[in-house]
């Protein structure tokens, strides 16, 4: 019997019991939809984290003042003022280091025309843009000479620019920062949220010299909130960490045995942890969803067993007119597979639809790949074969005479 005939027969058999077929399929539909949805959410989270990490810049250290506390580190925890711009310059001279960017911060009020906006200002050096992997949407960053002259130039994050200027082109316009006029020289390309969930695009960046003298003030001259340090290559990261630590201990005159008055954080390592966490999350989500697929598969096995029993006489008749074991096996296996495949296709559509809804209304990045679609098909056929095999085998190994006599 050729495959096309068997498929025809299987479809006929499935149509004969629409309600049962539908209910059995439901298990598969839910299973596949759940797997697709969970995989796409997991993949979305991974993609998002990878994008964030790529935007963050590579081979980065964050150096903050203050000793490592048991609760981890906090961004520029206010009180300690042990790091200075000169520390940053000195670190930049190390052979393993490509560049550093010292940063001071402070809350400011921005005004343009009638609009005003409160945010945190960043005072830094032109290196900051390269080290932090910032790209310019329009205009340009301030320069070393702007830094030396403490020019009143400002670079705005995309969100900040939008809030102050709306559709207007900000380049060349003057805004007021804490009531002092600054000329907007550049707008940053959007980066989205940071790993910690902070909106990185609400930012105002000015030369650190200008900031110290005119905005954030200098109760402790030369002190900074934190610095970004970029190593030359990923292989330099370990040496760089040791060198930074040694240099700072030396510069801060910390005697042997006393603890550091600063903390060096390897941001790339933190990013790796985040990536791994996202990977684990997507695997766990997929595994949980697979359980429902398993349950669906067991449902199919159950129904196929009932179907084989109900149709014992039909099996006997088929054997009497010449069906061999393989023909019977194929017939029942194909029925199970067809339920699974149809359920798989419907589940796939629902899963994709659900993913779309989630991305639409829950503001989550959802990624659906061809691999996932393939996986859904592979999974549902595999479930069909695995759970359909036993009932089909049972049908095929009936003795013709017993099957025919079955009432």
């Amino acid at each position, binding site marked *: 019997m050729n495959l096309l*005939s068997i498929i025809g027969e299987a479809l*006929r058999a499935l149509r004969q019991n629409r309600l049962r077929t539908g209910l059995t399929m439901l298990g598969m539909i839910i299973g596949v939809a759940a797997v697709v949805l969970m995989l796409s959410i997991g993949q979305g989270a991974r993609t998002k984290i990878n994008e964030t990490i790529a935007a963050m810049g590579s081979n980065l250290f964050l150096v903050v003042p203050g000793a490592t506390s048991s609760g981890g580190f906090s961004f520029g925890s206010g009180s300690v003022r042990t790091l200075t711009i000169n520390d940053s310059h000195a670190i930049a001279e190390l052979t393993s280091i490509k560049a550093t960017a010292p940063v001071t911060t402070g809350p400011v009020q921005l005004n343009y025309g009638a609009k005003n906006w409160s945010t945190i200002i960043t005072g830094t050096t032109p290196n900051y843009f390269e080290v932090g992997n910032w790209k310019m949407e329009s205009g340009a960053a301030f320069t070393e000479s702007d830094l030396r002259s403490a020019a009143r130039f400002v670079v705005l994050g995309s969100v900040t620019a939008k809030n102050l200027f709306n559709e207007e082109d900000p380049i060349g316009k003057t805004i007021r920062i804490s009531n002092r006029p600054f000329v907007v020289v550049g707008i940053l390309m959007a980066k989205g949220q940071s790993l910690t969930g902070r909106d990185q695009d609400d930012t105002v960046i000015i030369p650190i010299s200008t900031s110290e003298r005119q905005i954030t003030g200098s109760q402790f001259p030369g002190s900074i909130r934190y610095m970004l340090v970029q190593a030359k290559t990923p292989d330099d990261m370990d040496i760089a960490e040791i060198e930074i630590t040694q240099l700072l201990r030396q510069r801060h005159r910390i005697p042997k045995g006393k603890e550091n008055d600063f903390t060096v954080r390897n941001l790339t390592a933190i990013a790796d942890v985040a990536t791994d966490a996202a990977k684990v999350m997507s695997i766990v989500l997929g595994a949980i969803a697979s359980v429902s697929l398993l349950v669906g598969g067991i449902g199919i096995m159950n129904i196929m067993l009932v179907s084989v029993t109900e149709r014992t006489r039909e099996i006997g008749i088929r054997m009497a*007119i*010449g069906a*061999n*074991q393989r023909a019977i096996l194929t017939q029942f296996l194909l029925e199970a597979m067809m339920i699974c495949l149809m359920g798989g296709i419907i589940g796939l559509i629902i899963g994709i639809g659900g993913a779309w809804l989630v991305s639409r209304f829950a503001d989550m990045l959802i990624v659906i790949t061809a691999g996932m679609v393939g996986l859904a098909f592979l999974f549902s056929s595999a479930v069909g074969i695995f759970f359909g095999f036993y009932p089909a085998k049972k049908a095929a190994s009936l003795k013709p005479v017993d099957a025919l006599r079955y009432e």
Partner: protein
Amino acid sequence: MPAQSLNPAAYPLIQIERLCKSYSLQDASGKTITNQVLFDIHLTIQQGEFVAIMGHSGSGKSTLMNILGCLDTPTSGSYWLAEKNVATLSKDELARIRNEKIGFVFQGFNLLKRMTALDNVATPLLYAGISRAQSRKRALELLRRTGLENFAMHQPNQLSGGQQQRVAISRALVNHPPLILADEPTGNLDTQTSREIMLLFDQLNREQGITIVLVTHEDDIAAYAHRLIRLKDGHIVLDEKNRHETAPGGTPSFPSL
């Protein structure tokens, strides 16, 4: 198209020697009881014969038919079908023999439900590996010859008993088997319809030389056969030429098969 059995063959179609069949059953206390149903059966049937098997209910007629049809296996003894020792055949080979050499007709018709008469008749050909289109063509031809061309697209539950049995006979014939096994084919039919079915068998036997083995407990049905075998409690107690061999007569109601 004429079956291979038109000319007298060098070998018997069916040869059974010292055949026994017993069933093992568990009684209420879990003890195994052996129930012997067929005792030391010797039976030779030549190609082209028309044999009636008679006997009381429970005498082992169906058991014997099932063994003849390769649906069941004997407990001991040998069975040669068309020069093949059935005991040595694999399950696939048995399926093939049922498909090519034997046409079954049952008391309860045993058509596949919710399938048209046409597809019912075509199914053995599908199992023989013939294309669906070809199978249907051949099936339609057989339905025409049994006078059912107008019912080809009907499902079994839309047909009368006589019509269903003619569909079953068409199905039995569709792959040109040399042997038809019919276990009480008229058991569920009224006298007039039974007569039509028997005339059909008679015609198949005379015109195509198809060997027919038929189980019945009605004398007037058995009268159509040329040889009579009587079973009693699993023993063959009578095996003779039918006295009424020329009796039935009448004009065939079907176009030449």
